[in-house]
């Protein structure tokens, strides 16, 4: 086991591009489209007859623009969307979810932003998750309140 520290060192040095995705979500989103699920939960998300709206919808659009890609929206119930996320049909789901959401086993929740709000991501897509979390944590102070129209 004397070689173990050396092995760890080699892995750490070679691992500066970590983490990577299991299914390559980040690359696919960059090269194609961001497949986003949205469920109605004003003021975070508003799903009417037209295009989805709301603070998180706005944030997802802005995030996609930053990656140089477009968003394909899919409407549905929370459970249907989380199932689709687990099947690899979606890259993220928004709907004003909070940290203590019950389906943590089937989806990965982001680092909380704006008073414990989270987005739902597929499990194991860690490069993708880190990219999303960097975006959420970099939001300027008060930006989310301005979007939701909260005092």
């Amino acid at each position: 086991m004397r070689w173990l520290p050396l092995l760890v060192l080699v892995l750490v040095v070679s691992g500066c591009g970590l983490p990577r995705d299991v299914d390559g979500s980040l690359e696919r989103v960059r090269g194609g489209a961001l497949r986003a699920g949205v469920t109605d939960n004003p003021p975070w998300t508003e799903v009417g007859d037209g295009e989805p709206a709301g603070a998180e919808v706005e944030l997802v659009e802005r995030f996609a623009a930053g990656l140089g890609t477009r968003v394909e929206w899919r409407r549905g119930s929370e459970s249907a969307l989380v199932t689709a996320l687990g099947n690899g049909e979606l890259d993220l789901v928004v709907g004003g979810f909070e940290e203590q959401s019950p389906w943590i086993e089937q989806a990965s929740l982001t680092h909380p932003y704006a008073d414990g709000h989270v987005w739902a991501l597929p499990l194991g897509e860690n490069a993708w998750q880190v990219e999303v979390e960097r975006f959420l944590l970099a939001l300027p102070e008060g930006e989310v309140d301005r979007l939701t129209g909260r005092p």
Partner: protein
Amino acid sequence: MRVRDRFELPPDKAALHRRAVRLEWWTIAFFAAAVALLAVTLGQSQAMKAAWIEDMLGLVPPAAFLIAARYRDRPPDARFPYGYHRSVSVAFLAGSVALLGLGGYVVHDSLTRLLAGERAPIGLVEVLGVQVWLGWVMIAVLLVTMAPAILLGRIKLKIARQLHDKVLYADAEMNRADWLTAGAAVLGVLGIGFGLWWADAAAALVIGGDIVRDGVKTTRSAVANLMDSRPQVVGGREPHPLPGRLLAAVLDHDWVADAWLRVREEGHVFVGELLVVPTGEDGLLERLEDLGRWARDFDWRVHDLVVVPVTRIERGPAEG
């Protein structure tokens, strides 16, 4: 002849034992700190929950050792006429079962994760205002908890052999199991970083198998111990050389025509019966008492040896 004799370790062994007690207190402090650290830093992750349960099981052998250390050298009393040495054997069994349980848990946990195709999400954390991938933090915590386990385990293994202390041995094995699983978890987290979702569970499965093997070995040895098997060396199944040497030395006495010895292990010490066939009856009582004292001085492990004179010894067919 003195009955209800209190057993004391020889001075050099007693010093070793005091060192072992100190080491075990350090072990408890270390595991308690690790349990707290893991609980605080890595709350929700399943893999870290496993590491947490492992550290809690790691508290069992040192606790068993320390409890046995309080009882082992009490003099025999009316309730326990054979004394309390066996408390060490009981502690050995407790420690071994904990080791086996740990192995079983690691194997079960990693197999379920592997079969379910579970993918571990590891995102960002903010440490002192800096955003870091949580995987690096996990690896750092795991490496920090590995170092003391390696050191403690190595020192204990050495003392366990010199002291003929099998609880300490089981605990050293537990420390080895602990740093091996932590090492496996480091590789697993790195594997997850490389996008290999199965790496974590696969590494844990290999290490779990190794711990189960150790657990089975020590549990068998502990049960054999309580079944009064012939004494075995620490950490192996080979017979201990002392009973053979003692019998040969008894037969070297010129007034002993034949002799038969049966001993069992009670913790640190060996206890049993010695049958001798004397060549004559001149001063036999004194000779027998002298022989008993001589046997106790022969080695510090020989403690409670009953010397019985007989006219002849008929050996059974199964005796070698």
